[in-house]
């Protein structure tokens, strides 16, 4: 199974600022997925990140708010821009293969 690490593990930020979350995988993967888990709720897919191309965003999520980079096959970043308290969530990255799906430990974000 893939080993996934995320940085930071948690952060407390002021509204209006931005935070970049890093996801590192111990093997090369074509696709990486970013999810959000709001307090007390389940996971919602934000976007799919492919190396060498623009990320594909799900309905309700836009690039200006959640820009994603995918510079190589083991690394991706998700930025949460111009944060508001409603962005307080756990953000998780995830990788395949397609018959399994592994998740990182998550980044717990609190916006004041």
């Amino acid at each position, binding site marked *: *199974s893939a080993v*996934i690490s995320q940085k930071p593990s948690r952060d407390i930020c002021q509204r209006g600022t931005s935070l970049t979350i890093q996801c590192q995988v111990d093997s090369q*993967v*074509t*696709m*990486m*997925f970013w999810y959000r888990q709001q307090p007390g*709720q*389940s*996971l*919602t*897919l934000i976007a*799919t990140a492919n190396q060498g191309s623009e990320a594909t965003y799900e309905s309700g999520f836009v690039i200006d708010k959640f820009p994603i980079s995918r510079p190589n096959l083991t690394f991706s970043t998700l930025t949460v821009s111009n944060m508001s308290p409603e962005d307080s969530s756990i953000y*998780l990255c*995830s*990788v*395949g*293969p*397609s*018959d*399994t*799906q*592994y*998740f*990182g*430990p*998550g980044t*717990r974000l609190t916006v004041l």
Partner: protein
Amino acid sequence: EDQVTQSPEALRLQEGESSSLNCSYTVSGLRGLFWYRQDPGKGPEFLFTLYSAGEEKEKERLKATLTKKESFLHITAPKPEDSATYLCAVGVQETSGSRLTFGEGTQLTVNP
């Protein structure tokens, strides 16, 4: 649009008291039914993927089954360490990984 509904929302069991969790789904075509376990403050841990009606998979005290409209996670003689939130999801398989739509989860508590 894919929809996943889990029941019950919460379940309390005594140690050794077997039970089942339900996951019903509405999808345009099933491409994989995933079960995860999530402990507080951690990312989801992969348990099973099921693909066709009648399929069953087992892991220790857990057995997952699948019909055309729902999946069950059977827990036999649970122990307190089985306490967690159990999530199911349906997947759209990509070339490398799956885009998942999650249910709201069942929070299981097993009392000693």
